[in-house]
């Protein structure tokens, strides 16, 4: 096997790479006739012999798994991997991708040594150019994040750029970022080297073998049907690149893998007369939408155009594959941009314009993880044209995931389960990737909202709110109001609120927050995931007690905030559960938990026909009445006393509101402010909303959006799952001790880990930072991912931030670590450690002083609702 592989490698090495690309694509070489029969069974079957499939195989075999089969429908490393531009860049916006790229860089650099196969790895460095100040800010943000994880990089002047790269026109630049350790590498050779190493470790590799579909039984992978026979297996890994979507759908129980291919073009030239030096750095000119690297003395240059050409919408289409040819007219804007950047290239002779489709996902992040519907079905695909940069790290994380049950880093933002079947429409994918691909090089500003594929899921109040000036954001396909534009505001200007500084909705949200604090606001929060768990006996309580860390054996009508933990004590979900009666519970989780939480519950709940789990998200419209006067509005509408004596906090009761009966009223607001959540059966939604608005008028009611909610919850130190909490953070690390009942008498999932952590102490701690010397009007705003410095030393990163209108300061949430002075190892973090530090937050290279708090400061600031206050404001005659 190894010999055969190496012979492939050798044959490919002697062929002049790209020059035979078209023949390679249609290759029907039958050099090796396939008398080889597939094994009857294996532990793991990997589909796809590109860089991702081989990387997964490589890492799995490294971790000691032996019984692995890798199937490739054509030849190894012959798909997108073959035509990849070969640029390895660690300058990425998200820190998980940054980590994966950093790992890939380290892996590839030693691969040649490890396997003896030349990979063409060359540490050239990369320069990201900024033509505008905003772009430079964006680069500075990346730069400060690179520095803290030990990747050297610096912001340099245009003059320095000209020194590093002799051919560049730098007169229109305002600056650049230089990452000297970035590299170029031949991705096909990397894949072959990985395959070869995996093969040495016992992985069996079969090319010219197509996976037809995956066999499942009771939601579990049992085998794979190929065109050469069946293989029984426990795990299946879908690394089929742009065909992953189709392969997922071919299952009896379809696995939805939302990705879509777009044509991608890059240019190859013949060598210059004086060939470019091989260590010439790679250039990324995002404002010009192009990348340029040295290629055999000439250049390789491609880009992400504004008008992408989506392809394979209807699946694998032989005609479209054959028609993949150079489209010079389409490439014209990028060519113009290239010649503007490097005018001396005018005389360079063209070798080829390569058209190699790349795969994009609906949110520009790759897809990895286990299918929510089929256990043992893993996916790694949708690399958004960063397959080479991320391949090594992604393969490692997926292998860890399979072997240990968890990757060593938080990969929720890449998890397949962030999507559901609802993102699987071909039309949606086609439209969305047309927006995503240009976004690759667009400026990434805070609070970006996609414009395509919108208005898929909406609350029944959507039109009502829209007419009142709602501006919308989307989460898991659901439209949620961000804020409400008052009638007299200029709407056009508001749409242009793409800035790193103070956004123009600042005043609008301020008035909404103020209204929440002083009167009452209504926020449509229907997007929240809502499950009902019922049973005939005590099964519901028993299984929930096992799944959740808090004690759920509470009197009927009580609401419990609790984490859903994994074995390591990390949060799989953070939710509120109301006990509706002895045998049924109502569970509220974040919007994007719909798929993940469902899969988790199904996996761990006993298969018992007397225990029923139901997704009731669509059945209820949720209105959040926040503010001191919410109580007045509700009591007027229900003729029921709503005072804390009758309706204590964290209490749930079915009652009537207006004419509508059976409204679940809960005394919580997800913000720490007084108020109520109303869960309204959707047919009553409009009625209840109208009643609330008309009765609320005299209490000064108004609509509010998620931006106001966000400001309120962050200043109250309410951590949100998916932003501040993830699978690697435990309740003890984020002040959630009160939500864990270690002694509730049941050995719930994660209890052991928590017990141990309680004994040993935590290694990181979520803290709240209040920026001191930050000028809201003039300074850059924090977003998330900003490095935190403690006593001048890097201590962690922020996870979310908001402006607190009460404190009149910016508030960031973030984890503080205690890295040892000597070896950088993590040490125990105590409250004392937090309290005794001097903190700074680094926003795009500028450090701002911050105060760290472990508990919300709100109690000192917000005034309790007092009797005379109410009376006084009543006098104003609203």
């Amino acid at each position, binding site marked *: 096997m190894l010999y055969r592989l190496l012979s492939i490698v050798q044959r490919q090495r002697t062929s002049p790479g790209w020059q035979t690309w078209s023949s390679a694509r249609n290759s029907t070489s039958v050099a090796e006739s396939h008398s080889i029969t597939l094994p009857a069974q294996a532990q793991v079957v990997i589909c796809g012999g590109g860089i991702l499939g081989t990387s997964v195989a490589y890492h799995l075999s490294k971790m000691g798994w032996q019984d692995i089969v890798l199937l490739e429908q054509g030849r190894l490393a012959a798909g997108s991997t073959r035509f990849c531009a070969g640029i390895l860049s660690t300058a990425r916006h998200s820190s998980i991708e940054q980590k994966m790229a950093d790992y890939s860089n380290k892996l590839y650099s030693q691969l040649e040594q490890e396997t003896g196969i030349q990979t063409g790895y060359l540490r050239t460095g990369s320069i990201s150019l900024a033509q505008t100040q905003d772009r430079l800010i964006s680069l500075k943000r990346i730069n400060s994040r690179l520095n803290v994880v030990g990747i050297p990089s610096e912001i340099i002047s245009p003059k320095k750029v000209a020194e590093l790269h002799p051919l560049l026109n730098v007169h229109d630049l305002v600056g650049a970022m230089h990452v000297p350790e970035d590299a170029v590498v031949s991705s096909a050779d990397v894949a072959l080297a990985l395959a070869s190493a995996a093969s040495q470790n016992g992985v069996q590799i079969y090319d010219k073998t197509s996976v037809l579909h995956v066999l499942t039984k009771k939601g579990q992978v049992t085998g794979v049907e190929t065109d050469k026979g069946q293989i029984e297996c426990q795990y299946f890994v879908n690394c089929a690149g742009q065909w992953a979507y189709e392969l997922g759908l071919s299952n009896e129980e379809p696995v939805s893998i939302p990705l879509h291919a777009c044509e991608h073009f890059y240019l190859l030239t013949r060598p210059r007369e004086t060939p470019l030096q091989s260590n010439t750095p790679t250039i990324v000119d995002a404002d010009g939408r192009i990348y340029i690297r040295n290629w055999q003395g000439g250049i390789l240059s491609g880009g992400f155009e504004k008008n992408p050409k989506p392809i394979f919408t209807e699946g694998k289409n032989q005609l479209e594959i054959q028609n993949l040819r150079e489209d*010079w*007219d389409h490439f014209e804007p990028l060519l113009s941009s290239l010649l503007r950047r490097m005018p001396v*290239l005018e005389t360079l002779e*063209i070798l080829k314009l390569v058209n190699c489709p790349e795969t994009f996902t609906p949110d520009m992040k790759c897809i990895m993880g286990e299918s929510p519907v089929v256990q043992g079905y893993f996916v790694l695909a949708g690399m958004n044209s960063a397959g080479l940069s991320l391949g090594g790290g992604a393969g490692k994380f997926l292998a860890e995931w399979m072997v240990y049950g968890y990757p060593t880093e938080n990969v929720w933002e890449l998890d397949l389960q962030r999507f559901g079947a609802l993102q699987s429409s071909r039309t949606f994918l086609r439209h969305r990737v047309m927006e995503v691909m240009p976004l690759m090089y667009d400026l990434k500003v805070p609070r970006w909202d996609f414009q395509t594929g919108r208005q898929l899921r909406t609350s029944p109040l959507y039109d009502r709110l829209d007419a009142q000036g709602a501006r919308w954001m989307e989460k898991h396909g659901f439209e949620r109001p961000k804020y409400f534009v008052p009638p007299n505001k200029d709407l056009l200007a508001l749409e242009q609120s793409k800035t790193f500084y103070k956004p123009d909705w600042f005043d609008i949200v301020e008035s909404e927050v103020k209204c929440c604090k002083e009167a009452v606001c209504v926020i449509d929060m229907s997007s929240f995931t809502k499950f009902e768990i019922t049973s005939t006996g005590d099964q519901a309580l028993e299984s929930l007690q096992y799944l959740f860390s808090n004690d759920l054996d509470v009197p009927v009508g009580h609401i419990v905030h609790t984490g859903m933990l994994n074995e390591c004590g990390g949060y799989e979900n953070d939710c509120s559960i109301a006990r509706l009666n002895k045998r049924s519970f109502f569970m509220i989780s974040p919007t994007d938990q719909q798929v993940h939480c469902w899969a988790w519950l199904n996996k761990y709940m006993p298969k018992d026909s007397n225990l029923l789990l139901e997704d009731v998200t669509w059945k209820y419209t949720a209105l959040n009445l926040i503010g001191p006067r919410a109580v007045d509005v509700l009591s007027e509408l229900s003729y029921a006393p709503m005072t804390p004596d009758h309706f204590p906090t964290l209490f749930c009761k079915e009652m009537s509101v207006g004419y509508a009966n059976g409204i679940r009223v809960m005394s919580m607001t997800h913000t720490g402010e007084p108020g109520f959540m109303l869960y309204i059966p959707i047919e009553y939604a409009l009625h209840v909303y109208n009643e609330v608005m008309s009765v609320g008028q005299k209490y000064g009611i108004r609509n509010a959006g998620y931006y106001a909610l966000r400001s309120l919850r962050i200043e109250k130190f309410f951590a949100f799952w998916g932003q501040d909490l993830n699978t690697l953070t435990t309740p003890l690390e984020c002040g959630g001790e009160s939500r864990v009942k270690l002694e509730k008498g049941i050995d719930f999932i994660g209890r052991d880990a928590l017990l141990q952590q309680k004994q040993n102490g935590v290694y990181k701690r979520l803290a709240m930072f209040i920026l001191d010397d930050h000028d809201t009007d003039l300074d850059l705003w924090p977003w998330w991912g900003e490095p935190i410095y403690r006593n001048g030393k890097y201590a962690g990163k922020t996870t979310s931030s908001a402006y607190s209108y009460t404190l009149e300061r910016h508030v960031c949430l973030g984890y503080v670590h205690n890295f040892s002075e000597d070896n950088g190892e993590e040490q125990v973090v105590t409250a004392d450690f937090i309290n005794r530090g001097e903190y700074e937050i680094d926003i795009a290279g500028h450090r701002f002083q911050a105060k760290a708090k472990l508990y919300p400061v709100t109690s000192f600031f917000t005034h309790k609702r007092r009797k005379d206050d109410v009376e006084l404001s009543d006098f104003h005659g609203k």
Partner: protein
Amino acid sequence: MERPRRAGPRSCSPSPGAGMPPRRQGIPVRTSSLPLFSDAMPAPTQLFFPLIRNCELSRIYGTACYCHHKHLCCSPPYIAQNRLRYTPHPAYATFCRPRENWWQYTQGRRYASTPQKFYLTPPQVNSILKANEYSFKVPEFDGKNVSSILGFDSNQLPANAPIEDRRSAATCLQTRGMLLGVFDGHAGCACSQAVSERLFYYIAVSLLPHETLLEIENAVESGRALLPILQWHKHPNDYFSKEASKLYFNSLRTYWQELIDLNTGESADIDVKEALINAFKRLDNDISLEAQVGDPNSFLNYLVLRVAFSGATACVAHVDGVDLHVANTGDSRAMLGVQEEDGSWSAVTLSNDHNAQNERELERLKLEHPKNEAKSVVKQDRLLGLLMPFRAFGDVKFKWSIDLQKRVIESGPDQLNDNEYTKFIPPNYHTPPYLTAEPEVTYHRLRPQDKFLVLATDGLWETMHRQDVVRIVGEYLTGMHQQQPIAVGGYKVTLGQMHGLLTERRAKMSSVFEDQNAATHLIRHAVGNNEFGAVDHERLSKMLSLPEELARMYRDDITIIVVQFNSHVVGAYQNQEQ
């Protein structure tokens, strides 16, 4: 100067005042530039200069109108004054034409804008150009009937008000093939309208086999539902007269009854050429007969007379598989666009113009009439010194004997009797008929390199050379559908060269993509081309904002049909037969 100058440009009355040969059309676009023209006609052309304020303009325009009414029957004084510097155009007569005395105008679509507006914005220009555009795509997946036609684009731009051009397109349902035609009316639009409605039925009936004719006749006889004969492809503005449909139907029925009676029993293959000639002649004959017989309904009676006394040329293409027949009567033209192997375009003319420029037509006319008429039959390049096309439908003034004309006019309605034009007998009118509707039929076997066919009235051919027409349409169609992608393969191309090439292509594409219709694109060029062959928006805007009365001086009605052939199907036919 004693004779009234009332005729339209097409059937222009002899202009005794003009000693020089009359120019064919009032299109100074190519021959003289606008500023030169403005020398000759100070008042109206100042309309084109936007510097003049609105009030001044209305004053000037008012003056012009004043002239228009005052000098009904003689040329305006300033023309006489400027005669030395500029030859007044016969079309100028339109300008002084008393409208109220002419045929009753039906209110058509009018695009002439108010005189205050001199520069149209590009969207305004587009809305004018696109108002009449029509596209038809032959359904792709009609498996049983693979058509050699991909589809057609058609459009028309009026200069007369109302427009006198007509167009028709229909698919034959009982036989195979598609019919497309353009009709250029003169002395009103009645005849062209009637021909556009009726001619295809006559052709379709002529093509029908005996059995089908019998079936249809039996159906009519027994009041059963009729077999549909034609599937029309009409623009909403293309109307059919409801009132006359009964009359027209009866004439058509008489025709097929005669065809049935004439049938000898042997089911000989129907010759398309013969069918076309028969249909043309028969329709013209019916038009003539209907006018002689009259109709008890006074409206219809007047209508058939109007149809007979006005005229129309016709250029009709019948496409069935690889067989293309073009039947032409008059001076519209059918032009085939052929793409050579090197990608360049050449034009193949499939019709002969029947006018004074055609030696064979001159020859024919001279042979058909006594020797002593040789000089008078064509004078100043016009038939009897009056009519430009030498073949046409209607125009009974050139067909009937003087007696018949007088009788019909006297017994006709008052409107006809009062009309100077109809009463006027052409000079040297000795041996009628002088005019025929018999078409000249050209046959062409389609080849894969034949990409499209342009049918257009003379309004297009006067302004553009056929080679330019074919090139513009060819480049447009390839730009839209089959633009040759650039491939570097093997050539030495530098980035700079490629960049230049691409920039050029993009510039070209952007002008092409303004139009979704090849005919519109062609009209844009025909009206807006400057001396460099590029569309000049300013010129386009001026030409389209001409007041109704002036438009006819600068351009004629233009009607265009561009038929696109399916090279694959044509190629397949060819292979099949090999």
